[in-house]
């Protein structure tokens, strides 16, 4: 409580602007004033008293800091600052922010939307007591059912009763069967979901009724004797108005009167949360609830799902193992029962080998979950990949911006921000983007869910809801996305070497590009995985859609009619159905009409075991799905009749009394049970008892068709029996109408026909069979659609990323491209240069992506085999196609920036250069090109040589390489023993290890005779003799030339200047070059001249541009670092003056106020110029301020610490001279340290004379060595003393005559002004130095700092 109050107080203080530093200061000031007053009253020195109070408090700033920390929450302050900074940064870059935010919104939105359904379908537990102790009991093996009703995990009701007695493992067991009934609690009928349950159901689940009682053990006695209904809370609330008197109300279930006994609790929908029940009925009422089912107590009727509650401490595995002895005994007992089917010995063995297993049952049983688990998990995995990709995208964007922000970050670090702080800053930025993305994502999520619901089966209670679980998920995804996105940039920033930046050796940009390429490669790889997945899912869908169905869906319409459901008497239903059939048959729209008791591609319907009179009497191994059909069923559906006939009127005569007399089977049935022989005329019996009569005749055989499912072939055998014409059964049925014209148009006609028979009769699920096919392929359609969408989004994201990186690379290399094109590279060659770069990235991405995809394919082969039905998950064609497509799109993304670069004219390519420079270069290039083409026109040989040289240069990675390659090519072409390129460098023409003077013999000759000069050994000898006698200065050069054994010297002319010389050795086996070869060399000379000129041009232009930017930034940094004006002080006046040179130097000065009425003066001169000097200056300033304020250090200690710090920052590569003095004003004492600075002067008047002392105590410069010791110097000051510290720019300032200002002139000047206030001295000094420099160029900064003691 106390902690809470304190915390809230601090929080308030942090947020409230009211009690800020001013208040604190005021309070402290009052305290000190009162200390002084008291001292005065006591007769003590008030100043001294205040000084002591200050010192005791640890310096004013210290006390303030302690209080500030005490007052607020420093980390919250920091965080607020980070957040504010992030906000400003993001607002400045709206394009970046929006792109990053939207890509995360896409990822988070898709994830949240899909997770919403994953949660509802796959993750939620039942809202019952201790759901984790529930197990689902599964009969594993052959159960030999006689009747089967429902999907998977089935068992019989008697078995469920047996299970309730297994008290060693279970705290009770129960069973349930899901179904649908017509229900009426008043006049209207509703079709509602029902659960038929054992009496133990509610007790074992451990829930309490909202009203009345639940179905209990007393309802488990006799079939048909327990008309008790429990209704769901929602139905009670919404349909019955929440009536309190609902218990005891009489209701109708199908046509049976029953009584409501209770209302289930809110939120409870039975064991299938996705398709919740509205009613619960005792299993004993199965006959009333499910038409035609009357075998509740039959041990071979498999229709219920069995659940049990484990005893505390018993695991599902232990229960499985422990149940087996009892289960085996039960199986054994079963085989001895009278009603056990007569089966083959191997069938019996399989039966006895069955086991019963306990599976986790905390989520109940859901057909939807079983069906949708794999597609939903696949989608979830896909969206997680998509989010990962979005994170990579944002990371890439941040890195791209990081390249631009590099200087900003380096400067912030130099100014004292820690790496941790920068890292945190970037993470906060990323988190902020993620947060915005998360909010948008959360808003989009319901739309994604809604889109997904489209693909879900109807009749579920799934909804696009955002509840607290979904919200938490979105928050988690946002957090993870933020951290993931920020990690790479933060890592990159934390590796940025400060020392390298300060000393100007930054390599960060190269590393940055590599990092970004890696991220884009990862993005492309993930995209490949998503696209490969999409490819497989699309193929699966296509395969299922196009596979042979065995029926003709075109123009086929179906709907269900249920006359009994609307309140007309059950006995009337067959008449209504018949009337409906006849009316439809008479309708002009109908080509053919038939009906069956089940639709197409829907539920299976019950199966029956048969005894068959094949070559011997055999029993079917499993129940054969049985469908009741009307006349013309097969011809209406377009199913092929292979043998025999369809049903006709005779088959239904007296059907109610005699039961089925005829049956039609399908081809699979014939293959399996009749060995492929024609079965028409053979007999079968319904059931598998020894005395089952074989009284049903096979009258026809039809082709296999996909009645139940387009997916599996697990139960291809079917039998068809006639639809009853009358009687209690067959109350409802599905009609099939093959219509004329468009099916949609037929709907109205069908409705009209139905209305003629019974206006109140609803058409349930009126649809075309084509639509039904699409519904059956819903989950495949969902996977294919969404995975294609995700793949597309991923492709877009990563292509945008690639485009960004490649644009950046192109910008970086534009100059190079321009130069290459100026030298004759073709456009395609320039494009290739960039594309080659991208190809490496794409190839790496493809390899990585394929590796991931194949790993997944081989790691989860079973899973994928079911998910991608009938398509091999490692389908090579899919992968090849996907990879090709990705590579093509990615290549397109980089061809555009490359093409843009190549489209620039070579002259514009190096745009950053001053215009005039470029005009000159352009003229040169143009002239050279004309000459080149003229030359190559005359000589085929020189043409191919030029081509070869140009080709060699295009292969090169850098200009020095290009020159090397071109030289080697030329040497090989003319067959020279060696080749040497001498370039002009000041007063010499030189190669790496050979040089001749520019005013020497050879250059002289070439200047006056501008053609290749042949040389012979004799020439060298003659020149040598001549030089010996007349020109001894040339002797050395001639000897060196003779030593090379060169046979020809080719001048390289560029704009009337000799840019260089090519020296070639003798051609192989000869002593001289032919005239043709000389012509060739002349032509090549032009290429080389251009080449080396451009190398120089490029380097110079870059240098100038860099310098210009450096200067602007350095000047800005310097301006900010120098104090605006000196502080005021009673006993001394202070002044400073600085005159920056045109090229920014590294002068720095500072004034600092120290505790105890002391002042500090600092002057420094940093080695070097430009950015490195400016950054070092900022580091120096930061360290000085920190050290001077936080520690009561002596000047020598301070200098030692700063030297160490600078050494650390620059790795000993730079240094600064430094003078630092502490002025104790009251005691008139000066303590100083001089670290290699030119000695400041202490100017003192003695009588009429002036004495000037140099302050030299200290040590060497700062930053050169890791550990240096310094000595303090001490001076006692007198009034009128003048301290003048200055940089060497003052004494070395030159006038127009080149004369230095000098020490003496300065000292003379100081003698004149001794005793004046600092301001005066400063203005006189600066005037004099300015006058001195006049119009001369100022090479270095000129800086003074002056302190005059009053």
């Amino acid at each position, binding site marked *: 409580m*106390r902690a809470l*109050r*304190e915390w809230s*107080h*601090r929080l308030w*203080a942090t947020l409230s602007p009211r009690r800020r530093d001013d*208040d*604190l200061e*005021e*309070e*402290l000031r*009052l*305290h*000190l*004033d*009162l*200390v002084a007053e*008291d001292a005065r009253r006591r007769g003590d020195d008030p100043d001294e008293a205040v000084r002591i*109070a200050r010192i*005791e*408090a*640890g310096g004013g700033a*210290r*006390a303030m800091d*302690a*209080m500030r*920390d*005490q*007052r607020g929450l*420093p*980390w919250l302050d920091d965080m607020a600052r980070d957040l504010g900074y992030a906000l400003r940064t993001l607002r400045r870059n709206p394009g970046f922010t929006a792109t990053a935010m939207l890509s995360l919104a896409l990822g988070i939105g898709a994830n949240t939307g899909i997770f919403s359904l994953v949660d509802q379908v796959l993750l939620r537990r039942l809202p019952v007591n201790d759901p984790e102790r529930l197990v689902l009991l599964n009969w594993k093996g052959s159960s030999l059912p006689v009747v089967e009703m429902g999907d998977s995990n089935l068992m019989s009701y008697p078995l469920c009763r047996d299970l309730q007695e297994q008290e060693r493992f279970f705290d009770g067991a129960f069973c349930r069967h899901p179904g649908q009934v017509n229900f009426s609690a008043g006049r209207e009928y509703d079709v509602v979901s029902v659960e038929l349950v054992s009496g133990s159901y509610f007790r074992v689940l451990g829930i309490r009724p909202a009203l009345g009682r639940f179905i209990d053990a007393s309802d488990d006695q006799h079939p048909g004797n327990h008309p008790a209904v429990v209704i769901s809370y929602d139905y009670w609330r919404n349909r019955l108005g929440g009536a309190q008197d609902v218990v005891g109300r009489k209701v109708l279930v199908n046509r049976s009167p029953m009584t409501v006994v209770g209302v289930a609790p809110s939120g409870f929908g039975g064991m299938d949360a996705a398709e919740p029940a509205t009613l619960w009925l005792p299993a004993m009422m199965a006959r009333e609830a499910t038409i035609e089912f009357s075998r509740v107590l039959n041990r071979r009727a498999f229709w219920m799902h069995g659940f049990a509650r484990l005893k505390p401490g018993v695991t599902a595995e232990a229960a499985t193992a422990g149940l087996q002895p009892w289960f085996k005994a039960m199986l054994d007992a079963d085989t001895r029962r009278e009603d056990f089917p007569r089966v083959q010995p191997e069938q019996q063995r399989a039966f006895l080998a069955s086991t019963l297993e306990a599976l986790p049952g905390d989520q109940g049983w859901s057909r939807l979950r079983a069906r949708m688990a794999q597609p939903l998990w696949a989608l979830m995995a896909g969206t997680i990949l998509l989010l990962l990709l979005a994170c990579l995208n944002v990371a890439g964007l941040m890195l791209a911006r990081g390249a631009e922000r590099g200087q900003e970050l380096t400067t912030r670090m130099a100014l004292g921000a820690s790496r941790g702080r920068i890292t945190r800053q970037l993470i906060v930025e990323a988190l902020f983007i993620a947060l915005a993305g998360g909010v948008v994502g959360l808003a989009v999520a319901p739309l994604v869910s809604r889109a997904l619901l489209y693909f879900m089966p109807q009749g579920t209670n799934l909804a696009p809801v955002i509840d607290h679980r979904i919200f938490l998920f979105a928050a988690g995804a946002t957090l993870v996305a933020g951290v993931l996105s920020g990690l790479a940039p933060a890592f990159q920033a934390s590796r940025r070497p400060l020392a390298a930046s300060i000393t100007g050796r930054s390599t960060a940009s190269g590393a940055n590009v590599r990092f970004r390429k890696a991220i884009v490669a990862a993005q492309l790889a993930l995209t490949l995985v998503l696209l490969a997945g999409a490819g497989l899912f699309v193929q699966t869908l296509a395969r299922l859609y196009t596979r042979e169905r065995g029926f003709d869906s075109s123009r086929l319409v179906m709907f269900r009619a249920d006359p009994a459901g609307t309140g007309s008497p059950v006995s009337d239903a067959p008449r209504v159905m018949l009337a409906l059939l006849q009316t439809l048959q008479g309708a002009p729209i109908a080509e053919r009409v038939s009906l069956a008791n089940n639709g197409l591609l829907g539920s299976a319907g019950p199966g029956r075991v048969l005894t068959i009179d094949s070559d011997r009497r055999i029993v079917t191994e499993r129940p054969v799905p049985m469908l009741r059909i009307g006349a013309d069923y097969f011809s209406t559906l377009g199913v092929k009749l292979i043998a025999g006939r369809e049903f006709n009127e005779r088959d239904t005569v007296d059907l109610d009394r005699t039961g089925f007399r005829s049956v039609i089977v399908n081809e699979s049935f014939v293959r399996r049970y009749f060995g492929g022989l024609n079965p028409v005329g053979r007999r079968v019996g319904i059931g598998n008892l020894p005395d089952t009569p074989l009284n049903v005749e096979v009258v026809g055989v039809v082709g296999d068709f996909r009645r139940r499912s387009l997916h599996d072939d697990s139960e291809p055998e079917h039998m068809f029996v006639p639809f009853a014409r009358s009687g209690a059964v067959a109350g409802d049925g599905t009609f099939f109408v093959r219509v004329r014209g468009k099916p949609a148009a037929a709907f109205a006609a069908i409705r009209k026909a139905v209305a003629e028979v019974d206006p109140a009769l609803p058409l349930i699920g009126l649809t075309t069979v084509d639509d039904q096919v699409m519904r059956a392929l819903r989950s495949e359609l969902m996977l294919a659609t969404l995975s294609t969408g995700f793949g597309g989004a991923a492709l877009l994201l990563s292509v945008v990323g690639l485009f960004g990186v490649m644009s950046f690379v192109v910008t970086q290399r534009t100059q190079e491209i321009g130069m290459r094109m100026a030298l004759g590279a073709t456009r395609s060659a320039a494009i290739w240069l960039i594309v080659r770069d991208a190809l490496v990235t794409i190839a790496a991405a493809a390899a990585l992506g394929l590796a991931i995809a194949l790993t997944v394919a081989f790691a989860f082969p079973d899973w994928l085999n079911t998910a991608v039905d009938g398509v091999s998950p490692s389908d090579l064609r899919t992968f090849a196609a996907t990879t090709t497509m990705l590579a093509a799109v990615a290549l397109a993304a980089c061809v555009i920036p490359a093409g843009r670069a190549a489209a620039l004219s070579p002259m514009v390519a190096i745009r950053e250069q001053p215009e005039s420079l470029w005009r000159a270069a352009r003229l040169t290039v143009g002239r050279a090109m004309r000459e080149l083409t003229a030359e190559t026109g005359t000589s085929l040989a020189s043409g191919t040589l030029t081509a070869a040289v140009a080709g060699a240069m295009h292969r090169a990675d850098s200009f020095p390489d290009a020159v090397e390659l071109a030289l080697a090519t030329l040497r090989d072409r003319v067959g020279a023993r060696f080749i040497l390129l001498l370039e002009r460098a000041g007063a010499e023409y030189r190669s790496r290890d050979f040089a001749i003077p520019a005013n020497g013999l050879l250059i002289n000759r070439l200047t006056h005779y501008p053609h290749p000069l042949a040389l012979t050994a004799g020439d060298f000898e003659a020149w040598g003799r001549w030089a010996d006698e007349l020109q001894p200065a040339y002797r050395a050069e001639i000897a060196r030339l003779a030593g090379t054994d060169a046979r020809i010297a080719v001048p390289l002319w560029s704009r009337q200047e000799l840019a260089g010389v090519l020296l070639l050795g003798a051609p192989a086996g000869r002593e001289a070059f032919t005239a043709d070869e000389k012509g060739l060399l002349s032509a090549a000379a032009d290429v080389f001249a251009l080449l080396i000129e451009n190398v120089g041009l490029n380097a110079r232009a870059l240098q100038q541009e860099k310098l210009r930017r450096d200067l602007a930034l350095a000047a800005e940094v310097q301006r900010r670092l120098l104090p605006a004006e000196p502080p005021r002080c009673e006993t001394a006046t202070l002044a400073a003056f600085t005159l920056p040179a045109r090229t920014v130097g590294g002068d720095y000065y500072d004034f600092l106020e120290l505790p105890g009425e002391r002042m500090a003066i600092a002057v420094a001169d940093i080695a070097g110029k430009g950015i490195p000097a400016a950054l070092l200056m900022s580091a120096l300033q930061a360290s000085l301020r920190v050290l001077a304020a936080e520690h009561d250090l002596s000047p020598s200690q301070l200098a030692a610490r700063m030297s160490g710090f600078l050494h650390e920052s620059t790795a000993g590569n730079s240094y600064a001279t430094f003078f630092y003095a502490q002025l104790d004003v009251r005691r008139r004492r000066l303590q100083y340290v001089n670290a290699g600075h030119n000695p400041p002067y202490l100017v003192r008047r003695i009588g009429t004379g002036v004495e000037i002392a140099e302050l030299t105590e200290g040590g060497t410069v700062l930053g050169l060595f890791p550990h240096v010791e310094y000595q303090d110097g001490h001076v006692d000051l007198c009034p009128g003393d003048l301290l003048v510290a200055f940089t060497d720019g003052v004494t070395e300032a030159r006038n127009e005559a080149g004369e230095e200002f000098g020490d003496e002139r300065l000292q003379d000047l100081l003698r004149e002004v001794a005793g004046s206030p600092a301001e005066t001295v400063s203005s006189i000094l600066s005037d004099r130095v300015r006058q001195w420099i006049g119009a001369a160029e100022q090479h270095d900064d000129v800086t003074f700092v002056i302190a005059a003691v009053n």
Partner: protein
Amino acid sequence: MSNAPSKKADVLQGTLDLMVLQTLDSLGPLHGYAIAARFEQVSGGALRLNMGTLYPALMRLEQRGLIRGTWDTTETNRKARYYALTATGRRQLTREKQAWDQMAGIIHTLLHGKA
């Protein structure tokens, strides 16, 4: 907390808080300097609080809701922040006094045998 004082200061802190509360209880609202002066007076000059200790302590007490600070003017018409004991502070003082007496008794017994 990042700005947690050292252990030694912690021990002091308890007594300092108690002293401040007691002073405000017996003398009514006071500003910081008056509190320090009172300590010095009571201790005969032996206890001189520096402001680097006093003001953070006042702030801490205010944050805990034991005292409340308000701006007012002194007799010499200077603006000063006056601290007054709150009801919570008074209860806290009673509790701490009891605890202190108990502790002091125990220590006295320990050091000097049965009193």
